């Protein structure tokens, strides 16, 4: 037996005009378990609130129904009222007789009748209400940023400048990411290194940033405000505490590995720093290229190291980090275009990927900034092929967004550095960005030839050995073009990192079919994810250019700050829970939850819900065939009772 008080508000004449409020209160008093029913001009006013509080005490009410305006207006107000009077705030039901009855009905009979039905439903529902408690948790003020490209660097600096502790995790031995590989950036053509390296250095020097290079995430536990992350420090075989960055070791090393930074165009030493401005400036040993690891002897680096920093016995170690929020900024890869045999990448030496071409322009690159082919000759004719693997249902349907612009940049640099004829084979030129269309015009005026048609084949020339023939239809004239060139540059699709699905699994982020991370809302929450407290920035979300990446990084930093700047957080009380006795182990809840809150306990054969992740939508409860899931405050019984009440009148 519960004890319900019903309080009918007139809202001046807003309600009283089309509903007979005193009749409604009288009707209420006839309903089961209702011990007091009153009407009053303004329930939300101080006297109205006091009336409710007094009645709770006087009539020992355990449930309160306020029949007034929409719950979206005053539910919060009345929750506070009953809480002050000693009731649990969830023992309240609001009946919306203003927005959904009096304001939309002209006839007083109709209005009163509908209000009665709604009230009856509310009483049925109120009888089944249960007290709920929300949890308050402490918030850790640190932030982890995963990925040390321009997005991660930017976000780290922003957050560190607000005084928050930042852990910047990078899987390579230096930060900088792809931007460090570029020579110039479009459309301004400013030097990439000149704008990036000061920021890299700032990260290293910042007292609030812990830089964790050569590290990978191995486990993520906890939830918003309290993440518990295990980071694997990969063995560098160099003790960075001892190393003084003299780099004597790198000179003596005989081992040869593939230079990732130079896109494999040249070799680098086994003990190496990836590039001269790397941060940190301390080397690591590439096991796969090291003579000692391969053949069991050498250790030349150890002999020349005065600091005794070389440590061949070093093992991977694990570091535990606690933070309140995470920003994932793991960046992109370029698609491997060698399976697209028609373009001849990997078969003909004259065919280059876009990143390889970037390195040819760079004065720190394999050719010291001279554009030459693999045989050292300068190309006489160059074709740049757009949309390789992008905008292609057989590969990646999305537009990679930056290729048009960097292809234009390439054309400019080719013109500047060689006397070659430059051709662009394109489908559409997409130049939507500040200064982009202007840049496009500039390149046209530099006498670059634009051929509208997707290249169908790159073949070897039979007349001139070593030269390539590019075949395409010029769709503007309908002519079949066979163009002899020396160099072909492909603009491959920009795709997520190879391990993005794995990273997504660790942080419980959903990914699209290719592995780009999904944002919570494409328009209104582009940096948040379905996992509270985890944000995304940069090209791990979708292809984008540097200005957009930086803007996202700043945004993600601000979003993270809204969490870690608080000391305490309140967690949702209207979450779902599992009654293990009824769970049949179908795992439907696990499959549907957008937040990954339910997990299947294989040992017990039942699902369990992590309430810290639950947002209370109730989806799991409706897909549960055995009603084992209880959606608090919207339980099956409560909803069914309300429906029954509504249908009675």
């Amino acid at each position, binding site marked *: 037996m519960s004890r319900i008080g019903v309080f009918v508000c007139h809202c001046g004449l807003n309600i009283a005009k089309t509903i007979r409020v005193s009749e409604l209160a009288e009707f209420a008093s006839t309903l089961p378990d209702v011990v007091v029913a009153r009407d009053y001009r303004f329930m939300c006013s101080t006297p109205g609130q006091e009336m409710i509080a007094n009645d709770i005490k006087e009539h020992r009410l355990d449930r309160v129904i306020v029949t007034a305006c929409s719950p979206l207006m005053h539910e919060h107000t009345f929750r506070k009222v009953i809480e002050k009077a000693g009731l649990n705030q969830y023992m309240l039901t609001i009946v919306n007789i203003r927005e959904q009855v009096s304001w939309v009905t002209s006839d007083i009979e109709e209005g009163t009748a509908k209000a009665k039905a709604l009230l009856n439903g509310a009483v049925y529902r109120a009888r089944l209400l249960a007290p709920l408690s929300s949890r308050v948790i402490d918030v850790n003020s640190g932030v982890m940023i995963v990925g040390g490209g321009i997005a991660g660097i930017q976000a780290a600096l922003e957050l560190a400048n607000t005084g928050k502790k930042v852990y910047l995790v990078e899987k390579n031995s230096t930060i900088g990411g792809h931007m460090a590989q570029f020579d110039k950036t479009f459309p301004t053509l400013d030097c990439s290194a000149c704008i990036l390296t000061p920021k890299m250095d700032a990260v290293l020097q910042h007292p609030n940033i812990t830089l964790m290079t050569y590290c990978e995430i191995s486990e993520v536990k906890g939830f918003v405000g309290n993440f518990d992350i295990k980071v694997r420090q990969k063995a560098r075989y160099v003790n960075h505490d001892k190393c003084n960055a003299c780099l004597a070791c790198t000179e003596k090393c005989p081992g040869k590995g593939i230079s990732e930074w130079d896109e494999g165009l040249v070799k680098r030493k086994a003990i190496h720093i990836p590039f001269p401005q790397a941060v940190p400036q301390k080397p690591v040993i590439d096991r796969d290229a090291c003579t000692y690891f391969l053949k069991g002897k050498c250790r030349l680096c150890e002999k020349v190291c005065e600091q005794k920093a070389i440590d061949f016995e070093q093992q991977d170690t694990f570091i535990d980090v606690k933070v309140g929020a995470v920003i994932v900024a793991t960046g992109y890869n370029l698609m491997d275009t060698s399976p697209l*045999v*028609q373009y001849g990448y990997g078969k003909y030496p004259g065919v280059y990927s876009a990143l390889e071409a970037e390195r040819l322009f760079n004065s720190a690159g394999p050719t010291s900034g001279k554009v030459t082919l693999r045989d050292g000759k300068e190309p006489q004719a160059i074709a740049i092929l757009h*949309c390789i693997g992008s*905008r*292609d*249902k*057989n*590969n990646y349907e999305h537009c990679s967004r930056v290729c048009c612009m960097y292809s234009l940049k390439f054309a400019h640099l080719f013109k500047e550095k060689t006397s070659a004829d430059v051709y662009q084979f394109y*489908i559409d030129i997409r130049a939507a960005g500040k200064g982009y269309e202007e840049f496009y015009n500039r390149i046209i005026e530099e006498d670059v030839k634009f051929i*509208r*048609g*997707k*290249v*169908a*084949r790159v073949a070897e020339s039979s007349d001139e050995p070593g030269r390539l023939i590019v*075949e*395409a*239809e*010029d*769709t503007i004239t*309908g002519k*079949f073009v*066979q163009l002899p060139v020396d160099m072909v540059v492909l603009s491959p699709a920009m795709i997520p990192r190879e391990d993005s699905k794995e990273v997504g699994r660790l942080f419980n982020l959903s990914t699209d079919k290719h592995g780009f991370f999904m944002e919570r809302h494409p328009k209104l929450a582009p940096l948040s994810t379905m996992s509270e407290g985890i944000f995304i920035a940069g090209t791990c979300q979708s292809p984008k250019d540097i200005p957009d990446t930086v803007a996202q990084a700043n945004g993600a930093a601000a979003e993270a700050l809204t969490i870690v700047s608080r000391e305490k957080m309140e967690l949702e009380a209207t979450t779902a829970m599992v009654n293990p006795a009824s769970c049949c182990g179908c795992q439907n809840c696990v499959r549907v939850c957008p937040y990954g809150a339910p997990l299947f306990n294989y040992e017990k054969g039942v699902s369990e819900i992590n309430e810290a992740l639950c947002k209370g939508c109730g989806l799991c409860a409706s897909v549960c065939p055995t009603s084992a899931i209880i959606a608090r405050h919207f339980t099956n019984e409560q909803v069914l009772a309300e429906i029954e009440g509504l249908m009675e009148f």
Partner: protein
Amino acid sequence: MSQAVTPYLEMSQAIIEAGGEALKKCYQCGTCSGTCPWTPITNFNIRKLVRYGQLGFDGIEDFMWGCSTCKFCVDRCPRGVELIDIVTAIRNVYSGGGMLPQSLRSFVGSLAARGNPWSGDPAKRNDWAKEKYPLYKKEMEYLFWTCCTICYDPRNTRLARATAELLNQAALSWGIPSIDVNCCGESVRKVGDLELFERLKNTNLNYFQANSVAKMITVSPHCLVTFKKEYGEDYNIVHFSELLASLIKEGKLKPKKDFGGIKVTYHDPCYLGRHSGIYDAPRDVIKSLPGVELVEMKRNREQSMCCGGGGGGLWMEKLKGERLSDLRVEEALATGANVLATACPYCITMFEDSIRTLNVDDKIVVKDVTELLLESLEINIDEPVGDMCEIV
């Protein structure tokens, strides 16, 4: 005369309704036309065809017959446009209006009147067999589906006999269809006459049903694709080259004769390769022959070049210099091969024509892999000569 045009969307709608739904997806990037083997040598432009179709422009009839449905463009299209469906639909819409070119009329007419494209007498469909081979009966395992081309075309009846002999060699339980069947309808479907296709299909279906046909062997990849994809039934159907490859592997057929070091190159028929995904079986057959070196042409397997015989091309007049089969034969010659092997009667016909007009019959011969294998089993089917079936 005004040069202005107005899009005629009713026409575009008609094409869509005739099965050219994919029209809508095309973004005119030119991958298809760049890929199409016809673009460099004729005025046929598949991209333009689609464009004309999208807007219903006049003049489409000038180049709609160029496509040989080799499927290269479909495989490469970045938008997943089913270009062959569009071609078929456009032809359907226009040939409905009596636009069939002269050279195709006799073949379509023959199909309508006699159920085969070769103007052959339906009663003489099985004359090539000279009653040497059994008719299919319910208890038999395989129906050897004799394509019209191997029944009527004098060159290709040899292929029919070669196949029959090998089936006997392998001691399989098999039979040929009675004269109640007719053409599978592939070419006429691609030419756009969908009604006639339905008629032909139903005749065959009736035969299959009446005789409880479950397993079939075809030698024409065109029949293979049609039975698999257009007949709506689940037949266990193999191309003869697949069967041969597995019979050789199982040791049921053992190549004997040493060819003494000849070079053989293999041409992937479009309907066996790109349409059916069978690339290795015919190569395996060739590789099993003693004293034979398999050499590949530049364009092979998934990237193989069409002979030009598909999509009605076999019956169309093409000018010298506008024939893919000529180019393909030249490619074959460039490998230094003595034999151009293939596994499709259409390809055989196209290449033999080209070899004759190019005057290179002393340098290279065309053979089906079936014929090569038969030769290596030292079975002679060429005696006596002179009683090939009558061409009406």
